[in-house]
């Protein structure tokens, strides 16, 4: 495995990051603003900042084809940013929520995006030509608590959502006039708006941190705060799932995950490094960490000089102050995204976390 490419951007937590499709632009949520970084050589330099939100920005997403950026924040607003000759122009989205917006993602078709919120609704937003703005429709029904995460099915109609009520759900977000009728799948055949195509709960509960559809869309994986990853294979509409496999790990909770093909999942979280899970319908297991940490450890030992040792003893009363983690990330990883893939297999992925780093990993 190649050495991961780490970009230490600033000393603030990164709630979310997103790369443009050409990988030249990197957008990160930084406090109340959104920072735009431009690739220069093998570094990223600050290029622009998008001001508009007046509370912590919780999520950002760049649409790969159109290049539009959508952001949402605890100030209950979402903006769609478009690049014009005079810079980035925001358009306010009518979310109609009275709590923080927590998560936003473009649908693969890029005609809609979904915003999760603390108001126990998911706002599915689409552009209305007549009035020239983004309006929203609410997914409400069985949600009992804050939506923490969302993921789109490749058909842009089905939407998976994870919530602090410990349930992962699959909804239909079909909007007449925007979506084309989806192919029937194991999740459902007729899919009017707000159809609940699945509702899943782990035995040991725990609120949901991340959800993801497999590349084919025929399986759903989610991580929860019970340090587990659960993979669900639906059987038919209105039927219990064909298989629901729960892998409880010995790790701290995993906060984000992506699929690599249909038989591998990469997940990362409070243990500050990504892990690989492999399996299929018959069983899943944790295969181990992706990072090899030997090199980093050796480097640390060399720094330890006699002078340093006595200085540490003098200052802190201990010979070795080991505050450096052996992982590339020095704090919880929040977001994991596919960076480069070919034929449905991930070649590179990127992670960002509380330590202000964005890391690109190759596998």
């Amino acid at each position, binding site marked *: 495995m190649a050495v991961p490419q780490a970009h230490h951007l600033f000393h603030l937590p990164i709630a979310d990051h997103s790369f443009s499709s050409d990988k030249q632009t990197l957008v990160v949520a930084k406090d109340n603003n959104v920072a735009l970084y431009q690739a220069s050589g093998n570094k990223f330099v600050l290029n622009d900042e998008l001001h508009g939100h007046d509370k912590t920005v919780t999520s950002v997403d760049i649409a790969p084809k159109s290049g539009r950026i959508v952001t949402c924040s605890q100030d209950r607003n979402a903006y769609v940013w478009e690049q014009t000759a005079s810079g980035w122009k925001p358009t306010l989205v009518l979310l109609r929520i009275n709590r923080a917006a927590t998560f936003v993602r473009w649908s693969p078709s890029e005609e809609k995006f979904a915003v999760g919120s603390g108001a126990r609704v998911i706002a599915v937003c689409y552009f209305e030509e007549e009035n020239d703005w983004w309006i929203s429709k609410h997914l409400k029904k069985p949600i*009992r608590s804050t939506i923490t995460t969302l993921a789109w099915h490749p058909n842009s109609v089905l939407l998976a959502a994870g919530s602090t009520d410990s349930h992962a759900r699959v909804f239909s977000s079909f909007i007449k006039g925007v979506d084309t009728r989806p192919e029937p799948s194991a999740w459902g055949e007729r899919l009017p708006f707000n159809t609940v195509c699945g509702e899943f*709960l*782990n035995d040991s*509960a725990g609120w949901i941190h991340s959800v993801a559809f497999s590349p084919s869309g025929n399986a759903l994986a989610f991580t*929860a705060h*019970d*340090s587990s990853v659960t993979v669900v294979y639906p059987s038919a509409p209105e039927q219990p799932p064909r298989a629901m496999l729960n892998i409880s790990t010995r*790790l701290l909770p995993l906060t984000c995950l992506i699929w690599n093909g249909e038989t591998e999942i990469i997940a990362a979280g409070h243990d500050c490094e990504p892990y690989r899970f492999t399996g299929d319908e018959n069983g899943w297991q944790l295969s181990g960490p992706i990072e090899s940490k030997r090199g980093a450890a050796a480097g640390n030992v060399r720094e330890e000089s006699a002078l340093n040792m006595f200085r540490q003893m003098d200052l802190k009363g201990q010979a070795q102050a080991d505050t450096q983690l052996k992982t590339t990330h020095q704090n919880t990883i929040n977001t994991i995204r596919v960076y480069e893939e070919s034929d449905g297999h991930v070649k590179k992925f990127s992670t960002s976390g509380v330590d202000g780093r964005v890391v690109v990993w190759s596998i």
Partner: protein
Amino acid sequence: MAQINYRTINVDALDPEAAVNFPLDSLLPGNLPPPTTSSGAANVATQVRQMLRGGDPEGALRHVLDTAPLGGDDRAKEVHLAAVIEVLQGIRQGEMTRILEGVCSGDGGSERADCLMKYLYKGMAAPAPSSGVQSPRKSVSPQSTGFSQIQGRNLGEGGGGQQMSVLLSWHEKLVELTGTGSIVRVMTDRRTV
């Protein structure tokens, strides 16, 4: 008309949207074992005591963890906790690791490990049972959530400290074996013991 002190009304309780009215039973999985009573738990305790006396501590621990009254009432859970602690105290320090490895392996091993972790935390939260009479636990939190954080710990007196040290050494051994994941699951899991 009766005087109502409006300041003392718990307005959250009247608001169906409030967090205190969150339906906690919606977090329980559908495969919960049927409810058990304290007499059932007492039966298990006798069986387990026999196994301990018969020199099968591993079997005793396995049995007592497999029969945890996840769906039982408070009284059954209380009796079962006493049985688990009795087993834990009945196993010598030197044998702990070997027995734990046996109990936490095989089919359902990780569930048993998680279950044991729940009992360790519950044991540390509960006051040490005084011989014979057990006082019903007073619920401190406004609603019975299954967790109560503020409890008399009886650390100083009599057997309390000793029980705590037994639980702590089990905790250490169990974390070595199952990692921090099982501690996290104690906090999330609503199937309380």
